[in-house]
């Protein structure tokens, strides 16, 4: 049972990681906790559902479609709700604006779709494979593989491309990057676009895996992913991945070996303990305060 539970944990964790990446990227560059990120993930799940049910798309098309839609949505949110506030008012106003966007988006979806839970149709044949004593379903393989590919793709983008280099520069110092001729607004837009598309992918995968999408699904998932990002060290991309996987495994093991009643309590208690010992998170860098 241990290995099966570990697999359950890794699958759950990789969806957390996909969402956590968006938090950590945005925070890394503009130090904003984008509370609307969970709702972007929810929109991704619904756009995927729409493509599958109405347009009859397959999983791959739905995934790409949802990612593109949320890319635009993410940039739009940044343009409308965050950019006008940037530099002009305190960081707190942007945070409040983010909470506003979050409520707006979830309520908007509730108005469009109603609040009941809906499911993805069965678009995939679910096979179960036996590897040793371990049972693994094709869905779990798909989620793990797609998440891994997306994360590798992200690393390549950040490390090997020009826009990635610009992002890294911006995360070190926005003003200096701007002085060096980097179009900071474009980099921030790109950050939102990439983060949002990863969240959308997470939304579609979760929709298919758990068969449940509803307008308020982003709230708790966003909170967990945010916790995962903090656990891994907010601002650090590998940290978000490790944080997501760790949180997922901790939650599942908590249910499996301790008690389901304390599922969230266990996960968050471990989070608090890690942060007491390592305030910067698992992979976070120690920040020497600039004055």
């Amino acid at each position, binding site marked *: 049972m241990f290995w*099966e*539970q570990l697999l*359950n*944990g890794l699958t759950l964790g990789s969806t957390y990681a996909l969402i956590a990446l968006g938090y950590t990227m945005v925070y890394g560059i503009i130090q904003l906790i984008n509370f609307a990120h969970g709702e972007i993930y929810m929109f991704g799940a619904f756009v995927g559902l729409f493509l599958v049910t109405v347009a009859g798309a397959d999983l791959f098309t739905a995934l790409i479609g949802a990612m593109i839609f949320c890319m635009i949505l993410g940039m739009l949110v940044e343009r409308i709700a965050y950019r006008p506030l940037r530099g002009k008012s305190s960081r707190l106003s942007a945070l409040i604006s983010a909470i506003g966007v979050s409520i707006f988006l979830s309520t908007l979806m509730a108005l469009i779709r109603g609040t009941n*839970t809906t499911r993805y149709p069965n678009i995939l044949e679910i096979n179960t494979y036996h590897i040793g004593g371990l*049972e693994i379903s094709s869905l779990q393989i798909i989620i793990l593989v797609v998440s891994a590919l997306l994360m590798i793709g992200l690393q390549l983008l950040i490390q090997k491309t020009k826009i990635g280099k610009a992002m890294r520069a911006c995360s070190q110092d926005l003003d200096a990057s701007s002085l060096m001729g980097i179009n900071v607004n474009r980099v921030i837009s790109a950050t939102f676009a990439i983060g949002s598309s990863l969240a959308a992918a997470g939304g579609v995968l979760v929709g298919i895996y758990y068969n449940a999408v509803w307008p*308020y699904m982003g709230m708790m998932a966003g909170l967990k992913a945010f916790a995962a990002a903090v656990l891994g060290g907010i601002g650090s991309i590998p940290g978000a991945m490790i944080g997501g996987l760790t949180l997922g495994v901790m939650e599942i093991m908590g249910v499996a070996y301790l008690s389901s*009643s304390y599922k969230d309590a266990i996960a968050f208690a471990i989070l608090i303990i890690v942060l007491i010992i390592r305030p910067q998170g698992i992979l976070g860098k120690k920040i020497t305060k600039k004055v």
Partner: protein
Amino acid sequence: MYFQGKTRLAIVLCLMMMFSLIAGCGGGTNETNGDKAAGDTIRLGFLGATTGSVANYGIPGEKGMKLAIQEINAEGGVLGKQLEGIYEDNKGENSEIANITTKYITRDKVAGMIGDPCTGLTKVAADIAQKNKMVIFSAGATGEGVVEIGDYVFRNTLLDKFAVPVVVDWMLDDQGWKNVAIITSLNNGYSTALTPVFKQALEARQVNIVLEDSVNDGETDFTAQVTKLKNSGADVLVFTGYYTEAALIMNEVQKQNFDIKLIGGDGLYGQDLAKLGLSAVEEKVIFYCGFSTDQPSAETEAFLEKYRAEYNEEPDMFSAQYYDAVRILADAMETSGSADPTVYKEELAKLKDYPGVSGMTSFREDREPVKSPVFLLTVKDGKFALVNKLPVEVK
């Protein structure tokens, strides 16, 4: 103090406005002859929500009540008088139902009140009704502490504490399941109340409970719980929550590729069970409830026909229970020869083996209803289908 004509008029108008604000909650339909004591008709007040989050219970309830009143009037009424229903929407809110109950009693001078379908709201109304010596007849409250409020409080619904032992007997004797797992939804009051009822019934039969686990409403990841269930050696799963989580649990069971049936209460009675579960719930989820349109008795059959003709839709448990409640109340008035609650409540309490459209109904000495039979339903081809009818004995 003397007021000039216009001032006096203004004061009178103000008072009238205030009065209508206090009394006219929800802008009801039958307020025209407000203060007139009910002389020529016998009035019944409807308690239920037709808007808001529990409107799914109130809307069919109101339809059932209207149908019953219409029929009784066509048959010549009660005690030579016509029945008149008064319908206000309490929106499922405690403050609204308190206002409406008071209005029914003091202003409309009703002879009895039918509703509410929810336990919490019924208790609010029952407190007021008991103090004013007014009969309240809930058509849906299943929770504890309702009829205990007083001798003017009645209810007409299948109670979990009577249904569950019958269902447990069926699980053990009919299906031969021996090892039972129970999953509770912790943030669901219905579920946390139903689990002890199941546990008590199972323990009374010395059943081996191999796994006790929990989920939360609103969660979607049940992989860990289902993996535990798979390794627990349980023959059957009892889940006491609502349909959404039941469907998601069964989806996960299907994904983890093993075979187990899920037994639950009428909290699973929602169309979304089939929509969310698809093939995972087909003939796998079985739940009990007090009403089914499958294999109806003669009374239910007649009710079904009339209801379909009147509303062009299928009745549900609530329309049947409201319908029965009105009928039972009218019978009690007729037999006791009075529409005075202090008189006819004695007759009402004696109800035994009433062949209602929602099943055979009797009141025990403590006025708790015992309804028979219990219906076991499952999902077949995306629709609810009858598995079995189980008789309930009055103890």
